[in-house]
């Protein structure tokens, strides 16, 4: 129970092996996985060796079928992001700019935001069918909430002086939005887009995993039902990297407007 801060300045100055530690931890995890896979303690189908997963990944990345499925998922995510983010920006502008509307309706958005959106999937399937429509709706619904909350909060931080200047120039509502709100909201919109894109990707993929006949999520479930477990791991790895990596890439590139 030694507090790091009690160790003294000498300890703070000492060499800290962070990078080697991370590399060693990663290697240890991979070695443990491979040892378990080869030990025979666990059914090989459940924990396939890293070599098998690597081979499956190489097969997957060189197959036309993978890109055919990936293409649909990418389209679904892009359309859902466009729809959900646009709706989120409009609603966020209204809730942020009108204190009365904000107080009246924002609590609903605030408390609906963390509810598990996946439970709405049956309704979306009934409304839009099992095709890409329900996946797009799922993604749009998922990314709508972070965008609304981010934009509404951003609008409240717009300098009131700018709004008064706008009123003194008799700007219309549309002009106020275009000339004052939108330029001031680049950073909140970027934040909403970053958070929203992550949940939109997850929403689309989950909807595909649950019920679909094409897409990356469908591919995962197809491999699962055929018990081609190394391929399932490979497809999951790709889906996971796209979902997590997409978020990181957007975070990196959308940081610019905030600066």
């Amino acid at each position: 129970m030694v507090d790091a801060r009690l160790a003294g300045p000498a300890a703070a100055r000492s060499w800290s092996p962070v990078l080697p530690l991370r590399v060693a931890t990663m290697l240890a995890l991979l070695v443990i996985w491979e040892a378990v896979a080869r030990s025979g303690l666990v059914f090989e189908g459940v924990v396939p060796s890293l070599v098998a997963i690597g081979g499956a990944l190489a097969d997957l990345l060189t197959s036309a079928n993978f890109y055919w499925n990936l293409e649909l998922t990418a389209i679904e995510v892009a359309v859902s992001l466009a729809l959900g983010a646009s709706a989120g920006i409009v609603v966020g502008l209204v809730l942020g700019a009108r204190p009365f509307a904000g107080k009246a309706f924002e609590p609903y958005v605030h408390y609906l935001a963390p509810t598990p959106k996946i439970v709405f999937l049956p309704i979306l399937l009934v409304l839009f069918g099992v095709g890409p429509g329900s996946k797009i709706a799922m993604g749009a619904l998922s990314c709508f909430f972070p965008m609304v909350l981010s934009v509404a909060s951003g609008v409240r931080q717009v300098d009131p002086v700018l709004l008064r200047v706008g009123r003194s120039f008799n700007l219309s509502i549309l002009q106020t939005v275009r000339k004052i709100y939108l330029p001031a909201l680049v950073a909140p919109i970027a934040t909403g887009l970053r958070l929203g894109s992550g949940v939109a990707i997850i929403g689309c993929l989950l909807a595909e995993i649950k019920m679909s006949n094409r897409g990356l999520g469908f591919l995962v479930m197809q491999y699962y039902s055929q018990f081609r477990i190394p391929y399932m791991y490979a497809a999951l790895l790709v889906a996971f990297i796209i979902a997590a990596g997409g978020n990181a890439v957007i975070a990196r590139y959308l940081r610019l407007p905030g600066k």
Partner: protein
Amino acid sequence: MSKALSISSGSPGSNALAPKLPPGAAGLITLAALLALWQAADALGLVSPLIAPAPSDIAASFPALISDEGLLQRFVQTFFEALISAGLAVIVGTPIGWWLHAKRWAGRAYETWVASFAAAPLVLLYPLFLVFFGRNIGTIIVMSFLTALPSVILKTKEGLDSVRRVLIDVGRSLRMPPAKLFWKIMLPASVPTLCTGVRLALVYALISVVGIEFLINFGGLGELIDDLAERWEIPMMYGAISFVVLTSICFFFLTERIERWLMRG
């Protein structure tokens, strides 16, 4: 009422009637109006009851949901699954958070990993957990535990990191051994942040439990929704979804209030 009137400063003379209404009441009235519109659209045949049943039909399905589908028992099951997952996250996450705080090299090496793990779309890996644990409560608990774990670890570390230096110095001047220093000073001083961690763990666990139950068609409320959808019991399906949404809202609201109350205490 005076607060509501402040809207007029933003848009002079724009609306003479709306500011007289408290915002909360306006929200409720709008909600009621939307439900009435939905009901009217159904009655006029503009919306198919097979796609969007009337709100009155959804409300009428609740007695059957409770008596035939065991809504309340399923609620209890989901709630306890979330409680067990969050409890495990607290039991495992608190010592890890302390370790990351106490060993500075560990904190520097692994804190960003834990933060990345918190943001990772773990739910996508549910087919993998199905392979490991099968379609049973094990998958639900383990996945929800892993979803709730990072918030406990990060908040524990944050809480312990933020203990004021002067308190630690007082403990040292009293020659407290490290264990006593931890239990008597550091832990009590970091309780508010730890409470936030526990609340987040409960919230994430509940979201995860309902989601996984739905995805693997096993367990409490999530399975009920999936079952009703497969049986095309549309009004009951809408009823169950409304119940989940309302329960989630009440849960988030209550945990937030309890946390605020504890903070004040």
